[in-house]
């Protein structure tokens, strides 16, 4: 042996893996809907709940959710948070609002950007509507919805959305 060496205490092993994504039959229906500026959900054949986006089954019953349901552009913001922290890649001016949107006629909420209202005025139960990108910019993703904005209707009754917080 030649001279003693320092022990290795750290090494870097970069890992990069590429994957295909398979949306599946049901989720594809929702994604195709975005391309047409529509929200598409599916209804559980046991309990009747409507899921958007649909993954093809009802997570409560484990039953297929096959019936396709077109949902309206309007809904209730069940809960929200105000984002005050800047981060890399942020393309919205802070502070902004991230809300949970429960579309009318659906039974699951999803996250959406809330605009056209000061952060200080936002509240649970606020009625909102989707603002879509121009037709030529529609893609099969939720990015087709620019944001949600208040409709100006009276706030929804707490009991109508308390199960969806």
């Amino acid at each position, binding site marked *: 042996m030649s001279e003693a060496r320092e022990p290795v205490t750290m*090494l870097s*092993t970069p*890992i990069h*893996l*590429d*994957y*295909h*994504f*398979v*949306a*599946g*039959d*049901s*989720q594809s229906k929702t994604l195709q809907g975005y391309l047409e500026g529509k929200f598409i959900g599916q209804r559980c054949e046991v309990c009747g709940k409507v899921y958007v986006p649909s*993954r*093809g*089954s*009802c*997570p*409560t*019953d*484990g*039953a*297929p959710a096959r019936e396709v349901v077109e949902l309206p552009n309007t809904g209730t913001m069940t809960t929200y948070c105000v984002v005050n922290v800047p981060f890399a890649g942020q393309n919205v001016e802070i502070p902004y609002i991230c809300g949970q949107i429960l579309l009318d006629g659906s039974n699951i909420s999803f996250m959406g950007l809330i605009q056209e209202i000061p952060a200080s005025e936002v509240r649970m139960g606020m009625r909102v509507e989707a603002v879509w990108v121009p037709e030529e910019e529609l893609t099969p993703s939720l990015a087709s919805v620019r944001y949600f904005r208040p409709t100006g209707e009276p706030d929804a009754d707490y009991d109508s959305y308390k199960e969806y917080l």
Partner: protein
Amino acid sequence: MSKFPELTSGSRPIAVVSFAQAKAVRADIAHNEVEMLLPVFGELFAKAGITKDDLNFICSGSTDYLIGGPFSFVMALDAIGVWPPKPESHVEMDAAWALYEAWVTMQEPGKDVSLVYGFGKSSLASDLGKVLALQMDPYTMAPLWPDPTSVAALQARALLDAGLATEEDFAEVAARNRRNALKNPYAQVARDDDLATLMAEAYVASPLRRHCLPPITDGCSALILVAGERAYDFSDNPAWITGIDHRMETHALGARDLTQSPSTERAAVEAGVAKGGLDLAEIYAPYAHQELILAKALGLGADTQINPSGGALAANAIMSAGLTRIGEAATRIMSGEAKRAVAHASAGPVLQQNLVAVLEGAR
């Protein structure tokens, strides 16, 4: 005749009463994992006349490295429907080990009915070999990106060098498995090849030719375990797990004798494989030469039929292929075609970890 065969492992008789699997395909581009599992669960429950409400425990085997996304096993529960809540668990291993966890859990009275399933879509990875290289030691091996076929070729070469097998032996294993698969409607690669044609194939990784390799498969399988007398409520002839054991070897390939499988030998002893005759063996050997190593480690004689299903050379749905071996053996017990069978599952690089289960019918 006794209702339960004598047990080598555990104190509570536990049986497979139902098994179902998806048709193995190269790439299922129409369905996500939930959509792949839904019809399999439907068939599984219908066969046993069971509903999700009968379940006391759920355990699955899958890996996020195949889907390339986090918590895929949680999303898969959408295919079962877990309301009211059920005790549920998951192993980042072939679902044969999920079965082992369920079997241990069911030793406790009251835990009487379990669902065990595994799923994986190997088609999602752009380079499956790279994904599987990550199961190696992360400091000294994985950074070299050793793909599983190259590592298996080292093992096959060691077998040849030790004079324990020939390349013709590998081809015979592959030909027999794929011929058996002609009778398996769920198999992906099923055909009748003659040895000369197989031996004329070019090497993929010497000494392995294409026929020595498993197909790349999307698939899933599931089974129902029931403890004690209740098993007879769901099946006329349950497949009792009389012995089960699993063992593992070091992750350091260079420290192993790759021509042997001491972990399988030990698991076979613990599971009581040699306590009786064996009508059939379902062996998870993704590479043809590995069947030779495993058949020897299990102590199989000429009177035991190996892989009537076609095994992993006919369909290799990673994360469920081991569970499928148990399901295929159990199906043949339940049908009365076999009285006593051994099922084997493997995980990790070149047979690092091995599970052995003995299944017996009481009728």
